[in-house]
């Protein structure tokens, strides 16, 4: 069990229909997405996804010729109340850990913030010391 989660970063050219194509491959491979986020640079689009079996999904997608990478992220449980994001961000900021990007997912009274940081191990360490609950890879 680890608090470092493997996110899949799927890269697609910025062309009409590319996301539809990726989505159909994900469906064919039976990949179940728990959370995802779409980003685009001037050059290409990136689908960042938290999936239930990242290693297996990664292999399946590669076999289908999809450009995909595994990226270490952490998931932090946030109380669904004002100020919760500040608490987590503040801990990382004070520990001098840089957030590259993040995206949140909330369901009923529970919210999870997935964060990509420059030093995931250290982030896990400082966050757990503050008593903030994190998602473990086995929960996904």
């Amino acid at each position, binding site marked *: 069990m680890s608090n470092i989660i493997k996110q899949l*970063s799927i*890269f*697609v*050219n910025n062309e009409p229909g590319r996301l539809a194509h990726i989505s159909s491959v994900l469906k064919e491979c039976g990949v179940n997405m728990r959370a995802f986020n779409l*980003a685009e*640079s*001037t*050059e*290409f689009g*990136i689908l*960042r996804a938290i999936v239930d079996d990242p290693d297996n999904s990664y292999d399946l997608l590669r076999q289908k010729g999809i*450009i995909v*990478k595994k*990226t270490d992220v952490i998931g932090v449980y946030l109380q669904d109340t004002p100020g919760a994001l500040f608490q987590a961000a503040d801990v990382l900021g004070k520990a001098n850990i840089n957030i*590259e*990007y993040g995206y949140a997912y909330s369901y009923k009274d529970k919210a999870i913030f997935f964060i*990509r940081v420059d030093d995931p191990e250290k982030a896990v360490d400082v966050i757990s010391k503050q008593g903030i609950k994190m998602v473990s890879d086995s929960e996904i």
Partner: protein
Amino acid sequence: MAFWNEEIETMPREELEKMQLRLLKEKVTEMYGKSAFFRKRMDEAGVKPEDINSFEDFRRVPFMKKIDLRDNYPDKLFVVPYDDIVRIHVSSGTTGKPTVVGYTKKDLDNWTEALARGMTSFGLSKKDMVQNMHGYGLFTGGLGVHYGAERIGATVLPISTGNTNRQIQLMQDLPVTALAGTPSYYFHIADVCDQMGVDIRKDTKVRKGIAGGEPWSESMRKKLEDRTGIKTYNCYGASEFYGPMFLECEEQNGLHLWADLAYVEILDENDQPCKEGERGAIVITMLQKEAFPLIRYRIGDISAIDWTPCKCGRTHPRLMRISGRTDDMLVVRGVNVFPSQIESVIGEIPWLSPFYHLTLTNANYMDSMLVEVELTEESLTDDMVKLNKMSAELSRRLKDVLNIKADVKLCLPGTLPRFEGKANHVTDNRNYD
């Protein structure tokens, strides 16, 4: 019709050729004595200066190529000491290494003479004011045109490139009669004049222009002339042989090649002379160049020569419009660009794969260049900040080597076209009609 140097400019062909042969022989003899590079090449080819008694004999002399200039960077081909060199110009080279050219006082004098003759041949004189929009500095365009115009007594406005609004303002405020610049910059001037509501015909006295530094077509020239009322005269040159040097006369029918300064051969694919008027590779020998002589230099341009006497009365041969290249050199916004330069930049960056593609376009006749290159699998990241940094770094390194800005696009691994055999890395979508 005025001449700058009537005696030379109207000399009969036989006399010109007699002079050329004498100067060729002298130059080869001098070079054989002074240049280790040249002597070695001649010895390898088994030719001695005394063997050369005709133009046919001269064809036994080995070629000089751009790569020779690169290999002898920076100054190994100079045959006079720096004490005798009064100026240096530097141009972009083939694979990141530039070409350095030295000039003696006599070299500058001959260069200026060539331009003074050319400017006079299309009617410029001390009555004119020339706004010189070529870049001043290591590039030869600025200072070349500057001293040529001064030599004929014209008033020079050394404004250099850029700041188009100011260019147009001064054109209106001062009695400027002629411009000098690249074809694409003329079109840019015309566009900005439209935006500013300036009518060149009514609001300025500009009626003539020297256009050089990049290729353009006859139909582009016609378009520019109709649009602006500026009659434009082509100019040809290269820093290797001084700089801009050969101009069209009032007839606009080919560039007068000053036969006392340059001997030009046009060769076919087997290096045999083309018939007069047939197109082939230009091979140039500078007959009076001192600091950095050029003997049988393959410039890489394709054109033809016409010795038919020009209506203007000048007897020197005329070089027709440049119609292509013998190599893969591209001219982008007046700057020479070799795909190999781009390859060398990409090769130095570990996070890029060797797959790239270059696309050229010219909306409104302004060239733009897009470099698409693949990231490696390892370097591919979903961090936008890192991607932007990589893109900016590639852009900066390309600019350092090419001297012009390129748009860059980082591509996903495996997405650019692969080629079997010879790769085609360039798509030139520029339209000159």
